């Protein structure tokens, strides 16, 4: 498919990990679908930024490490990994505390980015 025909697809992650499975299953979908040759990105905003927190240790709960799945995003050929600045600030998280170095964007720029997509996937 020619680049001009590629669809821009954005996964929007607004939920915290562990309390629900939404975040994890969205990541599973992204990793399966990333190979479809489209222009795929992922955005973390609101409680979704908690998915990026380093040092997640869910062992005592017997749950899979969601932070490790997030880190694996860097292995995929993604158009971009975006993190909303205001969401980080409201939650007292700093970029240095995150499992990966996404592109931190102010809300106004993330809003623009979301509006430019062909497809927005929410979970």
């Amino acid at each position: 498919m020619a680049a001009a025909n590629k669809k821009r697809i954005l996964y929007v992650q607004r939920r915290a990990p562990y309390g629900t499975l939404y975040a994890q299953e969205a990541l599973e979908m992204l990793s399966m679908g990333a190979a479809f040759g489209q222009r795929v990105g992922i955005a973390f905003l609101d409680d979704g930024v908690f998915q990026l927190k380093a040092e997640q240790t869910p062992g005592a709960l017997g749950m899979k490490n969601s932070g490790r799945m997030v880190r694996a995003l860097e292995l995929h050929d993604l158009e971009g990994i975006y993190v909303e600045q205001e969401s980080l600030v409201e939650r007292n998280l700093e970029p240095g505390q995150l499992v990966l170095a996404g592109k931190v964007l102010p809300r106004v720029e993330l809003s623009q980015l979301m509006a430019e997509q062909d497809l927005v996937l929410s979970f």
Partner: protein
Amino acid sequence: MKFALLVNEGPYQHQAADSAWHFARSALAKGHGISRVFFYHDGVYNGTRLGVVPQDERHIPERWALLAKEHGVDLVICVAAAQRRGILDAAEGRRHGKDADNLAEGFRIGGLGQLIESGIEADRLLVFGD
């Protein structure tokens, strides 16, 4: 115009499955197409054939199946989400050594790739969830 729908919640507990069905029915009535409805997360529970619903209440899985029968809508249950939650077709049931299966007629088990494919091919993809 060709629509694809993603349903993220099971029947009854959340209104998402109702809203998606009403949207699909209206779109079809207006002459649009629904190429596929993909069921993910708890949405896979829409595909059970074991539901017992009082006569005076809507039967959500059967309502979906009718849409498939009358309009050729492709109803796809995500295999990964379904296995975890105990929704299996006969082949999956056998493959995993289960003594039963519960997928309703009109639905089929498919992979996540089929959602992505829908998203690429359809003119619009709408997500219904909680």
